[in-house]
């Protein structure tokens, strides 16, 4: 038999073995298919970074036509669920108890000062424990105030006396739904799980159960053993990606403005890098416990926190921003968010894709160099 024929047969056998193991191992199925669905539902329905019916206390120290009018404007917005309170003391108590997230206070001289040149002050007290909601409340109250003034001015037939008029237009995610940028980013998280965590675990399992020793004494080379894993988990990862993208588009109605094939190609590059990381970890850790720990700390958590998936990289401290450059997921998150919400913006896609290709090459090379058919 020729050497080539032998290699094809060995590789075929190894890949088939991997698929049989995936099919029979509930944890592989769980990570590849149930986890994406769970995360999608969590991020699609559960986690939202938008303000919606935030409980708010309204205190008008001297009720007047103007204050009632402004309060009505706030109540009409779906951002808030206002509760009118009689005194500041009562409102402060509610804030302390966590019953409301903020207080809007209209002073006794509200109506009088409103008609003066420098305008009436509205005091906004915000519960700063949840910084994100705090900032949203602050911004929305300000917005609501501006809108109310403008509407009032329009009604009275006079232009509002402001030096600059702001006309804002929101691009890419015009409804400002946080789901629209969270859900595409999930593709990166899920592929990290399959590529790095699952792959590191299954390699460690071969060491733990002693099957690696048996594989090593067969004519199969280490490259073939690694290639078998790579092919199987590449297919599984692609499956996870398709599932996530499908659910994003059809269930969560996230627009996919760029080309699907570009997404596919970039996902493949990212998957190779993730698999490279998983296999690199497996050359270091030969127990499932250690491999799992390393994979979570070195790949999954950074992909979650430092990739720009939830937290914008631009608003991180400069030092942390530098660190994000070694996080593979960051390049991919930039690509998916662009492809979903903006379209085929090549100036974003190409440099990030090049970075992914570089990372994949580095990790796969390390794996290949480090793996020898030796037990030490």
């Amino acid at each position, binding site marked *: 038999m020729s050497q080539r024929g032998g290699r094809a047969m060995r590789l075929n056998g190894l890949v088939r073995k991997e698929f049989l193991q995936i099919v029979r191992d509930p944890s592989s199925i769980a990570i590849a298919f149930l986890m994406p669905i769970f995360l999608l539902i969590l991020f699609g329905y559960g986690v939202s970074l938008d303000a919606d019916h935030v409980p708010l206390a309204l205190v008008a120290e001297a009720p007047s036509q103007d204050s009632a009018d402004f309060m009505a404007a706030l109540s009409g917005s779906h951002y808030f669920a206002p509760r009118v309170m009689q005194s500041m003391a009562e409102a402060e108590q509610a804030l302390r108890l966590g019953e409301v997230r903020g207080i809007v206070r209209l002073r006794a001289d509200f109506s009088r000062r409103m008609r003066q040149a420098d305008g009436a002050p509205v005091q906004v007290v915000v519960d700063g424990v949840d910084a994100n909601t705090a900032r949203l409340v602050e911004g929305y109250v300000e917005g609501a105030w501006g809108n109310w003034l403008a509407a009032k001015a329009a009604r009275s037939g006079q232009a509002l006396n402001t030096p600059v008029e702001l006309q804002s237009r929101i691009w890419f995610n015009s409804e400002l739904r946080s789901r629209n940028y969270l859900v595409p980013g999930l593709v990166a998280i899920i592929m990290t799980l399959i590529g790095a965590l699952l792959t590191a675990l299954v390699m460690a399992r071969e060491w733990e159960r002693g099957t690696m020793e048996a594989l090593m004494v067969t004519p199969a080379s280490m490259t073939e053993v690694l290639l078998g894993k790579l092919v199987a988990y590449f297919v599984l990862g692609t499956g996870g990606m398709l599932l996530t993208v499908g659910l994003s588009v059809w269930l969560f109605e996230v627009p996919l403005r760029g080309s699907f094939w570009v997404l596919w190609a970039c996902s493949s590059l990212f998957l190779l890098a993730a698999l490279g990381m998983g296999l690199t970890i497996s050359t270091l850790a030969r127990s499932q416990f250690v491999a799992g720990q390393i994979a979570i700390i070195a790949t999954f958590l950074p992909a979650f926190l430092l990739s720009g998936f939830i937290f914008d990289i631009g608003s991180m401290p400069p030092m942390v921003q530098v660190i994000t450059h070694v996080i593979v997921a960051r390049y991919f998150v930039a690509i998916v968010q662009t492809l979903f919400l903006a379209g085929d913006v090549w100036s974003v896609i190409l440099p990030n894709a090049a970075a992914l290709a570089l990372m994949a090459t580095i990790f796969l090379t390390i794996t290949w160099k480090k793996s020898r058919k030796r*037990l030490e």
Partner: protein
Amino acid sequence: MADGFVLEAEGLSKAFHAGGREVAALAGVSLGIRAGAVTGLIGPDGAGKTTFMRLAAGLLVPDAGRITVLGLDATRDSLAVQAALGYMPQRFGLYEDLTVQENLDLYADLQGVEKAARPARYAELMHMTGLASFTGRLAGRLSGGMKQKLGLACTLVRAPRLLLLDEPTVGVDPVSRRELWAIVDRLVKAEGMSVLLSTAYLDEAERCAEVILLHEGQVLDQGEPAAMSTRMAGRTWAASLPGTRNRELQAGLQGRPGVVDALVQGDHVRLVSAGREVAALQADFPGIDLRPVAPRFEDGFIDLLRQREPGQPHAGAANGLGVTDSGSADGVVIKVQGLKRRFGEFWAVDGVDFAIRRGEIFGLLGANGAGKTTTFRMLCGLLPASAGHLEVAGLDLRRAASTARGRIGYMSQKFSLYGNLSVRQNLEFFASAYGLAGQSKTERLAWAQDEFELAEFANHLSGDLPLGYKQRLAMACALMHRPEILFLDEPTSGVDPLARREFWQRINALARAGVTVLVTTHFMEEAEYCDRLAIMAAGRILAMDEPAAIKGLARTNYTPEPSMEDAFIMLVERAELKEAA
């Protein structure tokens, strides 16, 4: 290979680093293995057997020396060597979530067996291993013996010229063990294969054409097993002294000048004398009856080890101080009736009854998976029983498990030591865990270090200790609170024969002091050290009696002197016949 060696090692050395310490697994090993025969690589755990196998398979690089396999350098040409030999690692290398057939297919693909040649080869292997009707079953659902045979079939899927088997029979039931040996013998005779097989069971040595005795990384001896026994001819005896219990006689004989080995064995004490002359012994023990018996391989091994390390172990002070006695009037300390335990659909223990008297050494003998450890855990109150009645030290375990536990010492299979604590810290911890404090704690710590000769290791990490010392420490920890009942779960698996003897001396001393000992084992010969034993298989007791009486069950015209293994196999087969009927 003009000289007929399929494997040759020259000055082979290999060391491993563990916790900043260097441990020499092999130190200057030179040997040759003959073609067309079974060679046994024999030695206790840690002797270097697995390291040698892995070096031969090219999976490790030696620190010094050379190893040549089938004319190829195993280190430099490891790929070529791996293509030519078959190697079954200790855990068989099976994928448990693949079926029998899928495992075979995988190894056939990896070994490059042509598709056309497969059906015939598979049929042959399945016939040989008796797995033909299980091809669709997941490997993980096979019994230990079947896994072992499947592992062998996968290794043999392309007939290798040299077969390396690393401890293929460890923990496997005697029936499967006998079947495996039949397969190996057939491969050698019919196919002319060369086989190197490692084992810690000394009774397997006699089945090899040649044996290599490995001890602490060095070759102690090499040659035909018969030669080793022959050397001992005229020095082995069955001793008994009317009016003296065997255990007392053994204690008196052990450690005397002129005595190499003394073991309680069934109804007599097996004695190995230093020379053929035993007049001095007869003078010291008036009326002693010494009947010559055939020497065994183990006798030769012990003799060699004693020559290397003279000095007898001291053991005897037993538990230090008197033991409280809470047994019932009839002296029964442990009573078990209709004990059952279920895991899901599987009955691990399926109706077990026995009663153990004070000061008795009671053995549970069975293969892995027979239900020994499960029974044990229930007796220690670690696992609730699904059904049945359990009484330990006069206490019902359902009601007073923790009180009962205070009277029990338990030494588990894995020794339950804190590897990153020192010997002293382990002892202190277990003393505190059993509620010892102040003067009594100080006394017990001193006793443990003295009795088990642990003082010089007091500040060593217990994880770095040699196996024999770990075993001593584990036993010291289990005896900290002067328990009246001692549970020992596979206490001697893997330790060398000298350490095992020393261990049994301590057990005997404890029993003499009134401690009740319950021990599980899968070593057939070890079962003979017990006063009474129960043979377990598939969660049931097949027979329960004194060792000599159990062996007697298998006596036929063909086997007038049956071994414990003969009896075990006979009992298992009889139970299977009954099941089938």
